[in-house]
């Protein structure tokens, strides 16, 4: 499946959920180094749960395997993932809202405070000039777009090989959505692999290399982004096509 290039992230036959609720029912996918892969699907299909199960954020894995850079993540602790090069930007951003922008950023490098820390902080501000202007502001005073940028910047402080990005455009004004997507595209160009969960299917497919469409916890469609953008079945999954009975 992964062809000549071995996959950075490999998810095999994953069953996961919360307590008694099983959300994912046998999901397999992979992300190659430097790839931008999208996970699409209607609300409740299990997109966020997929990311939360990969990063062990709060979903529990009932069966299946997740390997990252050749390492089985079953035994990895959530806080160790960042050291392995896997960063998760959860939905809702989860910033430390009472702390300043600068402190939030530095906490992103919490596990990895070496001589390069200042370099990485400087890089972040170079990449997100809007944040540099608001260094000392507390995170809750930022606009929605700035908060999303801070969440991204914080995750990038660990210099991850793979970024799990959960609905970065939710609740943002259209111009801000465009900015976020531009940043995502730039990250991909600089070699960071991204697994992107999004509601906005068509815009996402324009930027992604490949995509999976989830429906009721299973992968209904997969393929290159260009093919899926033309596939009428995508719309049927979102809006309920002709009923199959």
């Amino acid at each position, binding site marked *: 499946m992964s062809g000549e290039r071995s996959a950075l992230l490999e998810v095999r036959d994953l069953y996961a*959920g919360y*307590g*008694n*609720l*099983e*959300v994912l*029912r046998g999901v397999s996918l992979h992300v190659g180094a430097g790839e931008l892969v999208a996970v699409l699907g*209607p*609300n*409740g299909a299990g997109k966020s749960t997929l990311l939360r199960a990969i990063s062990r954020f709060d979903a529990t894995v009932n069966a299946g395997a997740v390997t990252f850079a050749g390492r089985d993540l079953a035994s990895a602790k959530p806080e160790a993932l960042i050291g392995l090069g896997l960063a998760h930007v959860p939905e809702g951003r989860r910033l430390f809202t009472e702390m300043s922008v600068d402190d939030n950023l530095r906490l992103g490098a919490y596990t990895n405070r070496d001589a390069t820390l200042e370099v990485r902080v400087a890089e972040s501000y170079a990449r997100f000039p809007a944040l540099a202007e608001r260094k000392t502001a507390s995170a809750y005073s930022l606009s929605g777009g700035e908060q999303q940028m801070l969440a991204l910047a914080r995750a990038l402080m660990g210099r991850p090989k793979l970024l799990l990005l959960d*609905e970065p455009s*939710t*609740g943002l004004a*259209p*111009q801000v*959505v*465009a900015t976020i*997507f531009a940043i995502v595209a730039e990250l991909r160009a600089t070699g960071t692999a991204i697994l992107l969960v999004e*509601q*906005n*299917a*068509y*815009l*996402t*497919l*324009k930027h992604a290399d490949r995509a999976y469409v989830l429906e*009721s916890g299973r992968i209904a469609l997969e393929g290159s982004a260009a093919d899926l*953008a033309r596939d009428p079945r*995508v*719309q049927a999954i*979102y*809006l*309920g096509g002709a*009923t*199959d009975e």
Partner: protein
Amino acid sequence: MSRRLHDDARLLPAVAAAVLLFGLLAHGNATLLQAGTYAAIYAVAAIGLSILLGNVAQISIGQAGFFGIGAYTLGYLATAVTWPQAIPPWLQFVLSTALGTALAALLGLVLGFIALRFRGHYLAMATLAFGLIVTGVFHESKALGGAGGIGDVPFAQLGPLAISGVAAFWYAWAMVALVALLSTNLLNGRTGRAFEAVRNDELAAEVLGVATRRTKIAAFAYAGALAGFAGTFYVSYLGLVDPSAVGISLSIDLLLMAVLGGAGGVSGAIVGATIIGISNIYGHNLENWRPVIYGVLVIAVVIFFPRGLVGLVRVPARKATGTPTPGGERQARDVARISARAERTTAATTVPRLVVENATKRFGGLVAVDDVSFALDNGTLTALIGPNGAGKTTLFNAICGVGRVDAGRIAVGGADVTSWQPHRIAALGVGRSFQNARLFADMTVLENVVLGAYVTENATFVDDLLRLRRSRTSGREAVERARATLADLRLEHLSDVAARDLAFGDRRRVELARALASAPGLLLVDEPAAGLNASERARLRDDLRRLRERGVTLLLIEHDMRLVMDISDRVMVLRFGKKIADGPPALVRNDPEVISAYLGTTEASA
């Protein structure tokens, strides 16, 4: 009713036997009798606190204040007031007791009102402050004797019998028996069900028609009344009361009694009060160490026996009642009869027409619902769809009174309910299920569904307390209704399962049953299919269809578009709080604006 009450009822005979034995053995021993009498007095106050704490999940560290009000009322009336000759001493005693209890209840009502504004440690602090204020008033009041308190209160005289010595012991325990009986009645009635609902989930309780504010106030008033009652007896037994006797240390003792024995119900409070009452008498030389020992004890009990000492006693599980065993012709007839009744009970009793006019709801700068208007035709199924954050649940909340709109108007069956509390809207026949199935986790499935029928019950607090006919019949009818609803949804086999142990799909169906038990005319269902597998979805679709055929008007939030397009008469689409489409499914599905709302466009500007 509930498992705990059931355990409680089974423990009571053992407790009564222990008291009898104790009384007979202690007959010649004045110290032991005295200890037993104090235990009884404290037990009465502790029962009230145990109910507040264990059944309603409200804390009070000020119960000694009520105890003091009872004691001071009787003490004052017995020493400073000249009674008319016509009133014999026994009647003076009865009237003073009644007045002391009533004053304490009234103050309990006031504390209940205050408690509505606080939760958790803030509530604890507010009640603590209340207790301190009451003691402070006693301390500063010249008329009440200041720091010295009131002394020389004569023994209460009941006919030829002075309440002292052995007579006081038996009288005090008769008082405990009376209070235990009344409290058990209360907890087994509609009021007790409301208590349990409030303890489990206030929001769900309110939406089922439980007036949660009034329920909490009633609980505080009842606990206050019992503490006041205990106080009146205390002063007529001891003959004196001073501020230090009804101060913070008594409040803490009462708390310890309730927690040590096991909060909730009556038997734990009696056990706890007996242990503390007796050790107070024999532990006199420990005086300075008492707070330390009690403090350690409270922490130990909370950590190691969260259900208290009573919780350690294993009461044999009751036999599952009413769970039909399969097989047999009679069985089949029963089921047929029950379902026929279910058709009647779950068919809409009232059919309220819902009208929403220009509803707008803002959260800070965000307009969550933006000028939405619609009316629902009776007996139709309408789906409310839209991307995440479109404002669907906010609109639901506004309709059932959980979150008020900032502008606009909502009417149900002609009544303007825009500013009503949820329980009043529920009483009009508006049912609701939640996105995350807010079942009462501690209760069984049957108990959950019985609470669904709460709005159909008409027993009052006094009906329940005295177990009058209305309390018995309305409770029985609620249980019948619940059983019929469970039978209707083919869930009878789960009746005795605790809600927390249900599989996810069953949890959703039980929640639907709970919402249906009130026979709503309008049912709001929030994402019922989320997390269900294919066969569960098919069952859900059948259930929803059947309800509509019976005349229930349904408004459904759902993301499963196959289900939505399949069963809806009409689909409304929200986006950023605005209604962008409204019509039959086939039309809405092909609306370009709806498509872009769901799938976005290739341009970022959407």
